[in-house]
């Protein structure tokens, strides 16, 4: 019995070691490659660089417009997070507290969005018509709209777990709706706020399709598109491409390592409920 246990433990160890390599090697290739010379980088080997070319990063920062991409991505992501948290939480509170027909109808109206796919072509026409094609505003509003079913649903289900008496006590104390929401409910809603903040921020920051259709046509690039266009321009200069990739993944990776528990819990619990 013990021998069998040891055997299965060794097998498990070998399996995990192989799987881990499958995850580590691509990352190692990227990081090592970003410090190599051009002729070394295109060999795509896992050797250490002969000379550490830190200048690759300098070149990418100077020519790759990485920071412009960062700026665009940051503006869009931050705005979407704020808009969807404020409006989404309001709507979530409304649909879960108003237990009448209008509350329920609106809940199902939001949930309906889960089964829908983004209609890129007609959205393009709509933005043209509203004259906000290629603008920050257009992309921000589209992202906010797409995130809405998820945000409203998660807030609604969280608010359901908050005793109604808390609201009523606040109203008896003379709070209007706004004060009640901001000074009484919002502090209680903090966990679901954080979950939504993380999921929205990561999905908007990483999204490629929406800016491709509605933003880059106007020559503005978010960070994933900056990398993509950089890759298109420097297809043979892999040392620069690798450096650009590293620069793109650093902020998200740091955020992930710092907030790992919340990110994983948020992304998977969100999926479970969705």
């Amino acid at each position, binding site marked *: 019995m013990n021998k069998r246990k040891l055997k299965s433990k060794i097998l498990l160890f070998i399996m995990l070691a192989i*799987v881990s390599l*499958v*995850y580590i090697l*691509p*990352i190692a*290739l*990227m990081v090592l*490659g970003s410090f190599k010379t051009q002729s070394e980088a295109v060999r*795509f*080997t896992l050797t250490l660089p002969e000379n550490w070319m830190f200048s690759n990063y300098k070149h990418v920062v100077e020519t790759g417009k990485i920071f412009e991409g960062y700026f665009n991505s940051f503006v869009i992501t931050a705005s979407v997070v704020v808009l969807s948290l404020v*409006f989404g939480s*309001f*709507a979530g*509170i*409304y649909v879960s507290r108003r237990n*009448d027909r209008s509350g329920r109808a*609106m809940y199902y109206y*939001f949930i*309906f*969005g889960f089964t*829908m*796919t983004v*209609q*890129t*072509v*007609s*959205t393009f*026409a*709509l933005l043209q018509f509203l004259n906000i094609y290629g603008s920050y505003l257009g992309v921000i*509003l*589209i992202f906010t*709209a*797409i995130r809405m*079913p998820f945000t409203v649903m998660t807030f609604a289900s969280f608010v359901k777990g908050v005793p109604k008496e808390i*609201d009523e006590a606040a109203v008896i104390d003379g709070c209007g*709706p706004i004060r009640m*929401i901001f000074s009484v409910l919002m502090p209680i809603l903090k966990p679901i706020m954080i979950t939504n903040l993380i999921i929205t921020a990561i999905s908007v920051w*990483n999204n*490629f*399709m929406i800016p*491709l*259709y509605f933003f880059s046509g106007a020559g503005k690039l978010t960070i*994933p*598109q900056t*990398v*993509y266009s950089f890759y298109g321009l420097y297809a043979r200069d892999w040392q620069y*491409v690798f450096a650009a*990739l590293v620069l*793109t*993944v650093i902020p*998200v*990776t740091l*955020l*992930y390592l710092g907030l*790992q528990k919340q990110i*994983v819990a948020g*992304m*998977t619990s969100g*999926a*479970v409920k969705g």
Partner: protein
Amino acid sequence: MFSKKKNNIKNHYPTWLTIPAILIYTVFFILPVIMSIVLSTTDWNITRLTEPSFSGIKNYAIILSNSIFTKSILNTLIFATATTILKTLFGLILALALVKSFRGNNILRTLYYLPCVLSIVVVGVLFTAIMDYDGMLNNILRAVGLDFIATNWLGKYGTAMASVISIESWMWSGFCMFIFIAGLQAIPQSFYESAAIDGASTWQKFRHITLPLLVPSFTVVITLNITGGMKVFDIVYVLTNGGPGFDTQVLNTYTYRAFGLGLLGEAAASAVVLAIIVVIIAFIINRKLTNREVEI
């Protein structure tokens, strides 16, 4: 008056609370869906942007008789099915391996989940360096004497689709792993203990306790991956852009191509077809799997 106000729920939660959300959601998400359905029945194109005229089901007839479009539907279904099977399988195996805590457990979980927070573009570009003919994968294969397998993975008929499927599965297996870990942790330990007393083997325990009680996790993982797989765009766009030929063309890349050519009516029709397929599949899966769920 005060007591009347207290009982009036409408005053506590006024309707304006939900108006901004409803407005943004309706105008920028639901309205385009309706527009798509309408515009897909017109001869709308880039030269007739503002004055499309009704053309019935002509766009649907055009795309459905287009072999590239039917191939895209088939490819999308292949992609969604294959990635779902791989992600579910790997996710489950990794979850079973990592559900019990041991030293280094957390590091491994962190590592396997890492691709999920990265942009698909980063993963895509990185993997073109790996799957290239002179890429890392072939270098490794040559180093261990398997050079007869080495090929231009993303540029050849057959292997291109398999490569895209593998890369997508590499990215998201860790995500499924965490859903399964949560599901495994919810199974009461006492079930296994009493099964052990009855002399059940490891396989019997897995087959008759773990699997049935994991059905809710399977429902989530499968629904999410199938519908997500049907909507695939970024990874295909970055890795192969539908090529070689139309070997990896999926519905969303087909739509983008029609859009790029200015054939807006056709693009809208193809987007509507995708939406219909996604709704039907999500509905069927939910029906099938929720029937199998057991109460603990």
